[in-house]
């Protein structure tokens, strides 16, 4: 006779989300485990965040020392945007007491994938106290009528 315990729908959902968490963690590690600067291109990758609301996607990026007029946000394709910004000063490793690396940086650069379809043509950008805010209206707003 089988002694196998019957799993409830909640157990199955929990297991599914645990698996998803593990996958997300592996993905995050693969993406995060690299330097936040690129010596060859002399660029620094900014910290960024994405918030998805029912109407829009808001991408923010922390851009200390960013020169407002130099901030550029460019759609690369339907789901990826590229952020570039010049800094008002050059930053050298030596400024932070680091002598084992040589190099100086004066540009922020990163690419960010947008998780849902958006209309990049209607994108709006603002720079508030060094934080870049990109508003991207969502493309498809599905409505399922209640029967």
């Amino acid at each position: 006779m089988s002694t196998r315990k019957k799993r409830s729908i909640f157990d199955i959902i929990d297991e599914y989300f645990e698996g998803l968490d593990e996958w997300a963690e592996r993905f995050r590690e693969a993406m995060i485990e690299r330097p936040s600067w690129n010596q060859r291109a002399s660029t620094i990758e900014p910290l960024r965040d994405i918030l998805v609301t029912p109407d829009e996607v808001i991408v923010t990026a922390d851009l200390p020392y960013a020169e407002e007029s130099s901030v550029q946000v460019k759609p690369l394709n339907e789901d990826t945007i590229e952020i570039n910004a010049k800094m008002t000063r050059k930053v050298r490793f030596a400024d932070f007491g680091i002598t084992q690396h040589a190099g100086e940086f004066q540009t922020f650069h990163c690419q960010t994938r947008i998780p849902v379809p958006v209309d990049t043509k209607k994108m709006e950008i603002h720079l508030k106290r060094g934080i870049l805010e990109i508003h991207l209206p969502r493309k498809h707003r599905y409505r399922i009528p209640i029967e």
Partner: protein
Amino acid sequence: MFEGLKLSEEVKIIEKQKIPSGATMLFGFPDVGLVGVIAASHMISELNLTEVAYLDSELLPPLIVLHEGLPHSPIRIFGNHSVLLAVSETAVPADAIQHIMRTLVDWGKNKNVKVMISMSGIPVQNRQDIHELKVFGAASNSSVLKTIQDKGMEILKEGYMVGPQAIIMHYCARIGVPAITMLAQCFYNYPDPEAAAATVKELAKITGIKVDVSALLEKGEEIRLRARDVMKRTQRELAKMKKTQEYDIPVYIS
């Protein structure tokens, strides 16, 4: 040099000099906005605090911090005759944090600290629109709560607290050590020197430890740039601790 207390096999605190009794013990650990770490770093420099002890643990990742070519533990305690300040220069792994914080609290209790104060942040979504940042407080017992309330601190009445300060608060309440948590409105994912300055200013009101924050505010952009990597690693540990639960509305069970 003094060999410190061996409070547990996995976490040890090694004392480098005689530790004063009856000090105020502060904590600056990586959390949202790195508020505590930035505040702690500024206080160490402004109050000329020196390293009095450090933490050694197999639970930490295999890393040391080099300053002027010499190795240091990433978790150290700085101090003078009246202040002890525990600070971490690295994101503390979520699965080690319970053990590490409890050992630090046990150590502080053994040194008869009069109060333990965690400096941290509470994230707000419209942070860039807020100029006057509020600092909320919570306390380990009703008498300390009344004291901070009388000194003008706004109380965090309902909600969840996640992270190092939650462990300190809970453990202090259990073992009868007065404890306060200070939570400044801050960014979730970005280093926030302004929130750290608000915390340091509020700390002066409740402890009398006065520290000028003008240099901290002037160097704001430099700190934000410098703290990016620690912030990034802290984000990962916060996710493991389910930090976003702080946004949840608790079920009211009185």
